[in-house]
């Protein structure tokens, strides 16, 4: 898989990068302005040593995860979807599955211009609904807290990820069985052997992706996935 000459961006894509960067820069400024405002208002700046100690406890892990997430999810979400989804957060448990489901339901392929439009609409809709639900929930917390924290509902909230990835897996695995077998078997065996890894599943997403891409490339070159190289493979045989 050799890197070919860079493909130039379309005019539309370039414009997305311009306004995407403006929004992203504003978001970054606001994120940093929030703790600054808190320190000024309460006249309480943290001690540099404690701040550094705290950062050393989380940054090596979460900065790495952040970079991995960009490299993994940006191709799925498309340019404008990425600019928006990374500001609104909750990627793995919400925005990425939401975008995938929207493209699948609309029968539009990811990585295309149409896919990017649908993915961005899905992420935007999801962000607005999520922000409003949390805001309404916070405002009505006295009423909601006993219901949400009731022991009866606890198993349902404990099982959001199995409920999400069971259905999503059924769609994508059944569609791409040949591609799915290797990363699935690898991950199941890995988690059986090292259960503690469930706390850092984010880091394993690109590992699964690399295995799937490697297997896909081999199968594609052998002409087992259809497409361009199929004829060549049959000719070789």
């Amino acid at each position, binding site marked *: 898989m050799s890197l070919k000459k*860079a493909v130039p961006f379309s005019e539309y894509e370039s414009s997305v990068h311009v*306004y995407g960067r403006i929004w*992203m820069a504003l*978001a970054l400024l606001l994120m940093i302005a*929030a*703790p600054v405002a*808190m320190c000024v208002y309460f*006249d*309480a700046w*943290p001690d540099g040593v404690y*701040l550094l100690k*705290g*950062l050393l406890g*989380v940054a090596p892990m979460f*900065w790495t995860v952040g970079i991995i997430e*960009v490299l993994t999810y*940006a191709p*799925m979400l498309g340019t*404008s979807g*990425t*600019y*928006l989804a990374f500001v*609104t*957060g909750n990627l793995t448990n*919400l925005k990425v*599955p939401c975008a995938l*489901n929207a493209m699948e*339901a*609309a029968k539009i392929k990811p*990585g295309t211009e149409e896919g990017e439009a*649908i993915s*961005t*609409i*899905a992420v935007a*809709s*999801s962000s607005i609904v*999520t*922000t409003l639900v949390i805001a309404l929930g916070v405002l009505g*917390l006295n009423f909601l807290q006993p219901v*949400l924290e009731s022991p009866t509902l606890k*198993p*349902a*909230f*404990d*099982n*959001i990820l*199995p*409920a*999400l*990835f*069971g259905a999503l897996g*059924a*769609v994508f695995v059944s569609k*791409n069985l040949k591609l*799915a077998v290797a990363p699935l078997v690898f991950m199941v065996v890995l988690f*059986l052997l090292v259960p503690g890894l*469930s706390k850092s599943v984010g880091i*394993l997403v690109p590992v*699964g992706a690399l295995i799937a891409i490697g297997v*896909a490339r081999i199968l594609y070159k052998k002409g087992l996935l259809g497409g361009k190289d199929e004829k060549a493979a049959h000719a070789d045989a």
Partner: protein
Amino acid sequence: MPFDVNSGFLYLVTGMIIVFVIAQSLFFMGKAVKRAKHLGISRQTIRSTILSSGLFSLVPAVSILLGVISLSQFIGLPLPWLRLSVIGAVTYELPAAATAAATMGVDVTRNVRLITDPKIFTNIAWVMTLGILSGLVLILFGLKKIQNGMHSITGKDKRWGDILMDALFLGMISAFVGMLFSQIRTGLPGFIPIVVALCSAALMAICGILIKKCKWAWLEQYALPLCMLGAMALSIPITGWMS
């Protein structure tokens, strides 16, 4: 100013940033809808994408709200509300807050009570903020190069581009499906996530049959949220039987 983790000022800061996030979402939604129409995507598809994505987000949003509630027990409501509405996820925010508090001698995992020292609170706010910014900085300065790299890898071979995208999805799905097996050594209750996932997959298969055989095309957009809700509801009796 006297310090209070639930002060009106903190609500004001949070409110301003939440308004920004909604404005950004509306701006991107407007641009994407315009682009979708330009590309010939039907109004019906656009409308159902908006509706089904909103519906799909309801349950995970409630779960995020639960994260806000759990964090609010020691850092008040506004800060976790802000953090979980923008960038963050509870899997990051909780350990970040706990680590920042621990560096100043406060163990929030054992002794859950509201922070009263403003210096501990601002330390937590800074660690939560700075510890998660790598993704945003990389996108701000590097997304164009990353996308260019993707264009170069897929090149003109459209079929390989499609396969590459499928492989990326499957990488993510396989990691999370694999994670469901991490607890099975603990005995029968450890199988609960797998059974719930299988129920969800079975519900999706039923939806697939209804869409194809009974021509229920409308179900296509809503199958995932319905299957999720169904499997979550089933997880209540399943947990009862298997615990």
